[in-house]
């Protein structure tokens, strides 16, 4: 009967109830929708970063990340292959790379680059390069003196496909190795910095030029699905470390490889919850205001109830129950609206390329697919429900304070 009474009371003034409901619905919807946009953005940023040669997990020589020179390479290839194929789930792909700093030059220009020796077929499956060719052709394993470069690099070096490029770097004998390559293809990337920095040749050619034999600089591993919380990656990295059982190698996940990204993700999660709170504060004022209004209109009734012997606590319970119904309806409807609007745009994504051109240094992706996280939905719902009930205590206490005689003199 408390529930019946509360339910009927909220529909006594349908217009006011609908106004509160709208406030809750819009609030919850904005929490879910903006949360989904933000999570989509995060995922896309992580996806971009890890596909720009990072991968889910990498294996390096212990010293390589401090000092990425050719001497800090890994030579136990058989052992690595063994560990990779036994400890990773099927479907997980990896590729080996040689990665050193080099100097590129042609007749007009000289500049520092990162020379990446790749296994062309495997690499195409685990990093952005597989889908990034915009002109010319991609590399093959057998290519001898062929090279692919980024679009921005081409412009900076004022060169074009089929032109020559000289690469220089220190080899394992501490000699300067230098070799001429012919540009066969051009790739594009999310950012110009990437296009300028990386140039690709086949792994075999890199090893030969730098006198590395079988050694490599890194193994990059791509899990079949990105886990933005990094749990899956951490687990796989642990198993891999155990399988390799050699502390000259270091296995690291993208979270360890991209500490800034990790910090950014943590911060943006925190900001999302601040946003939730801000939305709630606006909504909370609306709830308090309207329910105070409703309560002053009904003060004779509260006086009557107290005269009949109702305890203040029971009156508080009644008012809070009314708010509870409003909040639950509002949260449900807000969720439905949030899910629907996210579903509607996640089909085609939101095109941010106009924005991304100006802001690529921030890593803003060109296309955004909103993503709803169960955790965010739960937090949004709980925040609204818990804080909503909490603020409704204020009008509830007011209602409970009317004394019967006060109220009856309003007759």
């Amino acid at each position, binding site marked *: 009967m408390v529930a019946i*009474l509360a339910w009927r*009371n909220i529909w006594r003034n349908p217009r006011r109830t609908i106004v509160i409901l709208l406030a809750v619905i819009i609030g919850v919807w904005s929490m879910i929708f903006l949360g989904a946009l933000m999570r989509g953005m995060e995922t896309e940023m992580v996806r971009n970063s890890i596909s720009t040669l990072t991968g889910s997990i990498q294996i390096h020589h212990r010293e390589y990340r401090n000092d990425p020179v050719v001497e800090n390479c890994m030579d136990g290839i058989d052992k690595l292959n063994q560990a990779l194929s036994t400890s990773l789930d099927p479907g997980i792909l990896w590729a080996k790379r040689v990665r050193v700093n080099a100097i590129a030059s042609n007749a007009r220009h000289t500049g520092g680059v990162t020379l990446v020796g790749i296994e062309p077929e495997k690499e195409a499956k685990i990093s952005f390069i597989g889908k990034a060719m915009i002109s010319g052709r991609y590399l093959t394993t057998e290519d001898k003196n062929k090279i692919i470069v980024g679009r921005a690099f081409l412009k900076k070096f004022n060169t074009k496909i089929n032109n020559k490029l000289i690469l220089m770097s220190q080899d394992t004998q501490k000699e300067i190795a230098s070799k001429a390559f012919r540009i066969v293809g051009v790739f594009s990337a999310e950012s110009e910095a990437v296009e300028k920095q990386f140039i690709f040749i086949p792994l075999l050619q890199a090893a030969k030029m730098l006198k590395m034999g079988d050694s490599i600089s890194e193994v990059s591993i791509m899990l079949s699905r990105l886990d933005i919380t990094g749990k899956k990656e951490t687990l796989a990295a642990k198993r891999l470390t155990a399988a390799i059982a050699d502390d000259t190698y270091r296995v690291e996940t993208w979270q360890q490889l991209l500490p800034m990204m990790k910090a950014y993700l943590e911060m943006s999660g925190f900001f999302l919850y601040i946003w939730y709170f801000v939305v709630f504060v606006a909504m909370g004022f609306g709830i308090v205001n309207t329910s105070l209004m409703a309560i002053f209109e009904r003060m*004779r009734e509260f006086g*009557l109830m107290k*005269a009949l*012997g*109702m*305890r203040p606590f*029971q009156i508080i319970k009644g008012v809070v129950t009314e708010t509870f119904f409003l909040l639950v309806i509002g949260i449900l409807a807000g969720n439905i609206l949030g899910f629907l609007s996210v579903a509607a745009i996640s089909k085609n994504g939101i095109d941010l390329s106009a924005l991304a051109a100006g802001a690529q240094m921030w890593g803003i992706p060109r296309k955004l697919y909103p993503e709803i996280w169960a955790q965010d939905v739960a937090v949004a719902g709980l925040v609204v429900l818990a804080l909503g009930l909490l603020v409704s205590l204020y009008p509830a206490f007011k209602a409970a304070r009317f004394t019967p005689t006060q109220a*009856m003199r309003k007759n």
Partner: protein
Amino acid sequence: MAIVETKNIKKTYRQGKVNVPALCGVDLIVDKGEFVALAGPSGSGKTTLLNIIGGLDLPDSGSVMVDNNKFADMNQADLASLRLHKIGFVFQAFNLIPVLSAIENVEYVMLLQGVPQTERHDRAKAILDDVGLEDKYDRRPAELSGGQQQRVAVARAIVSGPAIVLADEPTANLDSKTGEGLLLMMKKMNKEKKVTFIFSTHDNMVMEYAGRLVTIRDGRIVNDETK
């Protein structure tokens, strides 16, 4: 046996800087089963007295006892519990919770008293039948006439057999015929169920029905006659 006993009740209201004496020493003893009318001109203190007997207001001095409960020994929660279990109220207007139907209004106090659901329902039906509303169970107050609303209020007041029913001008908003009907019905409940009634009124016709007429003037009992 006294069911209500007040001794030398005094009550002064403060209105701004002026003191308004409302009751100036009222001694009243009402026995079980009485049907008492409080009469007196407007402002004489009838409502104040009823409110004090009902525990809605506290006197400045003097003592009140209802059904052997001394108000002086009780806190707000005890008073609320006493009102719930021992006292039925009928007010001049606005007696019913607007969103509840007639039968739900009657059931509601029993819910607060902790009466089980089926018993609640049966008793509410029976009492509404007694007050002649057998075909109006599910009407909301707004869909009932003033007289019918007051009958629901009386039904609610007596449904759980209180020690007394306090009614402050229960007929004031009704035409004389409807008022008479309500009074006859209250009288019937008084006779059949031995419910003690104390009600205030301005109306000479209403006073005719009283078994005892207590007249108040300027906060004092000036006449007390049993017929």
